[in-house]
């Protein structure tokens, strides 16, 4: 019945090859070279088979090659499970299926493989261009499926029909996309799929590490302020990230990795700024928040040194509401253990700055605020230069930076300043994060990119708690007040997007970023939470999966009805002559003269005339007119009108 064993024509195999190409080409960049070559060879072989009408390879060959390919994948990835090996296997099967394309069954299998590969593309990228490419692949694959069922229409007609079918599927897709209850993955473990270390801040800071991060223009997060006129000035945009109190002479490290507070330990007083933050996946636990956060997002906590940590690593883009207390300070009553940690210095090393700090200590005693002022003055006097390319430093990195090279990036400043204060007996620590950001005038989002990475110091003053001090601001205030480009000397290699010398380019960039952000927020970021928000906005109180299913059922029902009506609407032949004739027949039927559909008009007329001899002439004329309209090669236009008046005036 379903004839899955019918042979595949040459045209059909060409279509299937096109579908295979469209759905697998974007994957080539993510596959090992040997696999790309092998699959390409299988495709080329298929093309040759179709064009030259060669015989298919022997039946035994593809399974053998499939086993060989699977072994190859295993050697390459040491597993055949998981994301990339799975797609590699699918590609191999697709190539081999093309080589044993005999019946419609094989054609169906190829189409389904192509659908899988389109999904595979999304595992690597979900950008707008990727979505467009996937749409193209879907149209070609659907056209190939159409051709597999009926290969007579030409290419254009097949593509058009495929486009129409998919377009008709779009309303249902939108409904399901919006209303189908979403589940936050993963459903099972993701072996090997943990996001490979993306660039970004890490839990340690060595000289040069932040300079390296700032070579990227990837987006870290976007913030949308509730009141666009209340966006804090650039100099207050300190996005707090990992806090690093431990120093070994070269590298600063995070020590607190466990949440200590489930709510902010500081009073929610003073001016507040509300915003929504959309954090890109970075594979680490920490979240970024404008100092100091007044809210904790769901499933997160604050460590003892006030890092905002998520319970799960941020593997997907996440979005949370935030409120920042810009003037708040924390830790007025600080635990002695934390203060001790904030004073610890490695034994020996950096003697010159230690000596300077000793001097402050002698001069100001326990007046930590005065020591802080002295330290700031000292940094100012040293005429330090802010640069992305500082010279390499040796063992006494702080001394060499402060007294010899005097050139450094923010991590040098923060490291040296924190070190100096500790040497003077003031508790201090390094905080990494991002500083600043750029407001996209098109959608109002403040975009923070990797090149906004920054490090600063936090100093504990008795009675005030932890106070933020940014030593970079002392040497290069424009870094804080404007951005990194303004602060750096000309000619330093910055990421392309960080340069602000081309106005039109900035404009274009803003546009692209607004589009891409909209895509991220509404398409890619449509998660269970956004779905709930959306449904609440639709007027559904506390939507759960049951009410979602109910709403979905109602809307799908409506859509289906509309689609059914549209598809099944049959424009019945509304032939005016036939309508008139039927009216005539109804009139006669009242006198018991019934017209049968199989009766010709003239034949019927002669019968009717026999029964109604008084009207015979009229009946004959009407039948004659109708027959002429119906069967004459070129009926006159006025004859329809004449028939109409005749039938209207006819009274049996």
């Amino acid at each position, binding site marked *: *019945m*379903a004839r*899955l064993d019918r042979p595949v024509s040459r045209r059909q195999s060409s279509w299937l090859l096109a579908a295979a190409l469209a759905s697998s080409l974007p994957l080539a960049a993510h596959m090992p070279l040997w696999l790309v070559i092998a699959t390409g060879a299988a495709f080329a072989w298929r093309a040759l088979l179709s064009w030259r009408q060669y015989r298919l390879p022997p039946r035994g060959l593809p399974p053998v090659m499939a086993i060989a390919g699977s072994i190859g994948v295993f050697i390459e990835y040491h597993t055949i499970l998981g*994301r990339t090996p799975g797609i590699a296997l699918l590609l191999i099967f697709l190539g081999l299926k093309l080589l044993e394309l005999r019946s*419609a*069954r094989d054609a*169906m*299998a190829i189409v*389904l493989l192509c*659908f*899988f590969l*389109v*999904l595979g593309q*999304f*595992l690597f990228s*979900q950008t707008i261009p*990727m*979505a467009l490419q*996937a749409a193209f692949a*879907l149209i070609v694959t*659907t056209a190939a*499926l*159409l051709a*597999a*069922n*009926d290969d007579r229409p030409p290419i254009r007609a097949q593509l058009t*029909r495929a486009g129409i*079918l*998919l377009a*008709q*599927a*779009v*309303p*249902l*897709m939108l409904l*399901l*996309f919006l209303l189908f209850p*979403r589940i*936050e*993955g*993963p*459903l*099972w473990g*993701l072996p090997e*799929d943990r996001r490979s270390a993306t660039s970004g801040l890490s839990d340690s800071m060595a000289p040069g590490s932040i300079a390296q991060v700032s070579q990227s223009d990837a987006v870290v997060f976007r913030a949308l302020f509730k009141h666009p006129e209340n966006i804090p000035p650039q100099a207050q945009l300190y996005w707090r990230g990992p806090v690093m109190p431990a120093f070994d002479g070269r590298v600063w490290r995070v020590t607190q990795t466990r949440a200590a507070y489930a709510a902010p330990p500081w009073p929610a007083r003073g001016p507040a700024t509300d915003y929504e933050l959309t954090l890109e996946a970075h594979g680490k636990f920490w979240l970024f928040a404008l100092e100091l956060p007044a809210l904790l997002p769901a499933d997160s906590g604050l460590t003892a040194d006030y890092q905002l940590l998520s319970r799960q690593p941020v593997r*997907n883009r996440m979005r949370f509401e935030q409120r920042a207390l810009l003037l708040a300070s924390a830790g007025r009553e600080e635990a002695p253990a934390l203060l001790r940690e904030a004073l610890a210095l490695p034994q020996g090393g950096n003697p010159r700055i230690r000596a300077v700090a000793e001097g402050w200590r002698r001069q100001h005693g326990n007046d930590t605020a005065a020591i802080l002022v002295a330290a700031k003055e000292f940094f100012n006097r040293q005429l330090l230069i802010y640069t992305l390319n500082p010279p390499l430093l040796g063992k006494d990195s702080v001394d060499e930076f402060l007294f010899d090279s005097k050139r450094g990036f923010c991590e040098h400043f923060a490291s040296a300043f924190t070190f100096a204060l500790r040497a003077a007996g003031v508790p201090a620590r390094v905080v990494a994060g991002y500083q600043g950001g750029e407001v996209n005038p098109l959608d109002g989002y403040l975009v923070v990119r990797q090149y906004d990475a920054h490090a600063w110091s936090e100093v504990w003053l008795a009675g005030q708690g932890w106070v933020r001090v940014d030593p970079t601001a002392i040497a290069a205030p424009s870094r804080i007040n404007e951005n990194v480009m303004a602060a750096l000397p000309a000619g330093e290699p910055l990421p392309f997007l960080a340069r602000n010398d081309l106005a039109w380019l900035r404009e274009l960039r803003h546009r692209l970023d607004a589009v891409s952000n909209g895509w991220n927020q509404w*398409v*890619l*970021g*449509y*998660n269970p939470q956004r779905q709930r928000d959306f449904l609440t906005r639709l007027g559904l109180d506390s939507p759960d999966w049951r009410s979602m299913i109910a709403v979905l059922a109602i809307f799908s029902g409506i859509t*289906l009805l509309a*689609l*059914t009506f549209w*598809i*099944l609407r*049959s*424009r*019945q*032949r509304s032939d005016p002559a036939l309508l008139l004739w039927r009216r005539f027949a109804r009139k006669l039927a009242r006198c018991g003269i019934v017209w049968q559909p199989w009766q010709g008009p003239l034949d019927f007329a002669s019968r009717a005339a026999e029964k109604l001899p008084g009207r015979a002439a009229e009946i004959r004329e009407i039948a004659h007119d109708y027959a002429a309209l119906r069967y004459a090669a070129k009926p006159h236009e006025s004859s329809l009108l004449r028939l109409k008046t005749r039938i209207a005036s006819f009274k049996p």
Partner: protein
Amino acid sequence: MSASLRSRAHARFVRWALRGKAPEAAPILLEQRRVYVLPTRAGMAFALTLAVIMLGAMNYNLSLGYALAFLLAGLGIVAILHSFRNLVQVSLRPGRCDPVFAGTPATFNLILENARNEQRTSLRLFVGDPDVACTPVEIDVPAQGFAVAALVLPSSRRGWYAFPRTTVETTWPLGWIRAWSYIAPDARCLVYPAPAPKAPPLPWHDESSHGAQRDGRGSDDFSGLRNHQAADPPRHVAWKAVARQEQGPLLTKLFAGSSAQELVFEWEATVALGDIEQRLSMLTRWLLDAEASGMRWGLRLPGTHLAPGHGSAHLAAGLAALALFDHGAS
């Protein structure tokens, strides 16, 4: 065991689907209520694929994966509607069905009409009965037009051959969904008895040969040649034609003419053969030969009498009488 159970269930479904109105009067309109839709095997495979894509999208939190799964689900739904639409509102009526001799295939013509402005693509017609060897017919019906599907079925017994219950189905456009309907049109094919393979001579010497006038044979209009038979007069042998070919049977010239002789075939004349079917076969052969030789012939069967005549209509009447001899109500 399960196969027979399934076929029995299927037979019940068909009976229910046709709801005892077989044979149906023409034209048969395939309205919504009688068109059934179910996924094909390929459709099931697609549904499975869809489920796996959905799982993948959930597991990897792929928003576009969800979109893909939902779009494909929508495509599946749209495929249902299109397959259904491809079949629904087609109207069918039986067309010509020329009589055949038993044993030769009968061709039933079905006329499919499409009132819609779009073509109906790849409609397939076949006889569902597994005992009937019938190659499915696949046709397109043009927009606002009609197409004729010729179903060729083997005929075995003489008499009326009622058009068997037929399935009209389509899996167009995607092959995932099968829409189908059953029809039992009121059409029948007249099956003549198979002519006896060995042709005995025409029963000239029978006393019942009604006023046979051998000398009055029509010899004015030459009408054709046929293989020589023992009873043919030697002067009608086509010697010239025989001389032209190196070997082969003798050929007899046939003549038609108003002066051709008359012969009435009697049912009783074949009594020696015993079996009714054999006797009918014999008569069929004689009728064909008599018609071919151009003579006027008649036929007398119990309950039927055909006056001597000639021509295709006469032959058809004679053969029909033989086909329907003792054929019960029909």
